């Protein structure tokens, strides 16, 4: 998760204390990724343990502990900015799993399942578009950062609709080819897991 690297990159600008880091993170991401102060301090603990940051001065009046980045931390920031974000190859996408399961069940109208999702996703897309349209000419870096995130959500929603369109076509072809029949439960109990034991009541 990139909160760790994001905080490190912010600390690369100068020492900060925990609550300040949260504010900085929020205003640079349009508050689109809520992070609580507890998470910030946990992350700071780990960054300190890994020697990427260290405690610097303590503001005795405000009781704030400042953290500053180390040389190793600066290298980490450079590496982060210079490398791609790894995407998981295994799907954890709830919708993909839902369709995959639904297609194997008898009596499920998949076209309807797809349409319900498409309508919902497009309504989200409409809302995102309105939000974006309201601040389409960014007047500050904060607004620009926020717009980038809205754009990313718009493109993700669009991709989902396109995937649904594609799935619908694929499904129609599969039905026409007669390969879209549901998968019945396998009555041969798989011989894995906990071995069956004979129960005796003697």
């Amino acid at each position: 998760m990139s909160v760790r690297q994001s905080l490190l990159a912010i600390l690369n600008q100068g020492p900060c204390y925990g609550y300040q880091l949260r504010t900085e993170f929020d205003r640079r991401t349009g508050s689109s990724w809520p992070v609580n102060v507890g998470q910030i301090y946990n992350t700071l603990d780990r960054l300190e343990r890994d020697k990427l940051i260290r405690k610097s001065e303590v503001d005795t009046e405000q009781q704030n502990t400042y953290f500053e980045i180390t040389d190793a931390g600066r290298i980490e920031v450079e590496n982060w900015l210079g490398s791609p974000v790894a995407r998981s190859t295994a799907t954890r996408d709830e919708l993909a799993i839902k369709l995959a399961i639904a297609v194997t069940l008898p009596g499920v109208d998949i076209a309807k399942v797809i349409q319900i999702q498409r309508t919902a996703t497009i309504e989200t897309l409409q809302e995102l578009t309105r939000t974006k349209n309201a601040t389409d000419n960014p007047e500050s870096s904060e607004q620009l950062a926020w717009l980038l995130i809205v754009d990313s959500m718009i493109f993700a929603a669009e991709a989902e609709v396109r995937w649904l369109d594609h799935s619908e076509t694929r499904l129609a072809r599969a039905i026409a080819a007669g390969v879209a029949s549901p998968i019945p439960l396998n009555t041969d109990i798989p011989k894995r897991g906990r071995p069956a034991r004979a129960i005796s009541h003697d």
Partner: protein
Amino acid sequence: MTDELLRLDGVSMQYGRGETAVTALAGVDLRVSRGELVAIMGASGSGKSTLLTVAGGLTPPTSGEVIVEGHWLSGLSARQLATLRRRSLGFVFQDFNLIPSLTAIENVALPLELDGWKTRKARRPALDALKVVELADRADRYPSDLSGGQQQRVAIARAVVGGRSLILADEPTGALDSTTGEVVLKMLRGRVDAGAGGILVTHDARHAAWADRIVFLRDGRIVDQAEAPTVTTYFDAVRG
């Protein structure tokens, strides 16, 4: 002046007869009011473009009624229909359809001139329409001197010139890159917000999302509709 710009009542469209007949539209009901942009989505062959030609009075439906600004198209003579099309409807196509030998302003003024306006008199509203799409400074350029996005903006100006209030757009962003397409949609949206009404046929969900309502067509039937929530609950949730 009525708020309802367009109404389709039980509109069906069949091509051919007997066993080879193809149903392009089957009992479509649709309403578009002033200030409303309605997107039509659907796979190829779902009836999207047919719906637009029927709504624009270019082809009469096999059955059902099309009512534009209170006029029942079935009751109009060919001449009355042509007049209604010129005065009430503006079309925007994927490939812009500007006349290459006319300048931007002449293209925009053309529907008015066809309607009997003198060339000099038509210039003023044409320039106003070009101002709206922020192209007044390109008024005397020919289409070949304009970018794709600018040409499409000229086409939007032509679609709304002289107070025509129903815009029928068929894949207006199809030939444009993503960013330019968005500028064009923004202009379309702006015209609608200023009191026009419009139908936007598109296969692109991101572009359809500019509409107030999205209608899904499958095999000539409306199978579902999406409507933007009036309160931004989703974003309030995300932003905490």
